[in-house]
């Protein structure tokens, strides 16, 4: 299984690549050009890594390579300096999102959040990543999402922000608040997706989270599971009632 951090970085990077491809031929600011250079360096590293992965012969070799995944965080100091040199520049919004989605501590994320809140609530860069900001797992991001929800008029974008906010509230176990937001997303997110190729709509994901928040929290009675084993024999979770049950969702597919 790939460690969580790798997936987080891949997502952050995928988000930033989307931004790059959306760039038109219009003249770039100096900061945007510098940002693009950094991104090109990261893209090249990534490509080289994938090529190596494809040529791996053994599982052990692959595991080793996963640990050497190109580290998007090593560009953080450069990107932070860039956004601080002119926080209002559109390139700074992109730099801020890169740093925010890749940072591990609140301190690392602080400047990015402030810059986005102050200058880039209406930026395309923030629009493109708003539905994945829950991935940062940071309470500090709630302020940014709340600002965005208050100030933006585009209802689809606001729904995406509500979704991210609800996921963060869920992470914090503020389940009642999370349920309210997920209920809004359930109504408003029927044609919205987290990513272009997501398998579920935001509304469907919200439904699953509402169920989890209501019935699958610590202290709640576990719902029964009625199903079959691999040979078609009937199996119920309640068959084991009275015992301590370790319910283990697993698979290797």
């Amino acid at each position, binding site marked *: *299984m790939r460690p*969580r951090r790798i997936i987080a970085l891949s997502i952050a990077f995928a988000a930033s690549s989307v931004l790059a491809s959306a760039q038109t031929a219009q003249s770039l600011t100096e900061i945007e050009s510098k940002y693009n250079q950094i991104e090109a360096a990261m893209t090249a590293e990534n490509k080289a890594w994938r090529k190596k992965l494809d040529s791996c012969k053994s599982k052990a070799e692959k595991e080793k390579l996963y640990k050497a995944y190109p580290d998007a965080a090593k560009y953080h100091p450069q990107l932070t300096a860039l956004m601080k040199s002119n926080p209002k520049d559109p390139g700074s919004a992109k730099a801020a999102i890169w740093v925010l989605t890749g940072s591990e501590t609140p301190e690392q994320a602080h400047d990015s959040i402030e810059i986005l809140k102050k200058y880039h609530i209406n930026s395309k860069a923030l629009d493109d990543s708003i539905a994945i900001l829950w991935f940062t797992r940071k309470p500090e991001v709630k302020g940014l999402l709340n600002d965005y929800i208050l100030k933006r008029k585009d209802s689809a974008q606001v729904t995406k922000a509500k979704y991210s906010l609800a996921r963060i509230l869920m992470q914090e176990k503020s389940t009642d608040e999370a349920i309210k937001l997920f209920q809004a997303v359930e109504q408003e997110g029927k044609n919205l997706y987290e990513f272009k190729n997501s*398998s579920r709509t935001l509304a469907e994901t919200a439904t*699953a*989270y509402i*169920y*989890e928040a209501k019935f*699958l*929290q*610590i*202290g*709640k*009675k*576990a719902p029964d*599971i009625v*199903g*079959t*084993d*691999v*040979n078609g024999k009937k*199996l119920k*979770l*309640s*068959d*084991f*009632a*009275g*015992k*301590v*049950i*370790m*319910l*283990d*969702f*697993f*698979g*290797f*597919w």
Partner: protein
Amino acid sequence: MLPHERSLVNKMKNKPFALVGVNSDPEDKLKSLIKKKEVTWPCFFDGGDPSGPIATKWNINGWPTIYLIDRKGIIRFKDHYLDDKVLNSLLAEQTEHAKRLKN
């Protein structure tokens, strides 16, 4: 991962404990895991992929996900790993309860 679970099932043989799996593998893969005795505990077959009905309903987004449920059916723990301390305290509760019933 599986060796850990097998040894757990062994260790808990005489205790009021049940390991119950919800497996997201394709049918032939799960069948072969059972045949090779890598999986020796009861297991739901969840439609053959990670978006099966049980995993979807339980909103599983990462594997493994582990729930610990006490003798009354109350969820006491959930995470992507097993906390032995919680498991042991639930078993102690259970033993205590059985003792009280006897007296």
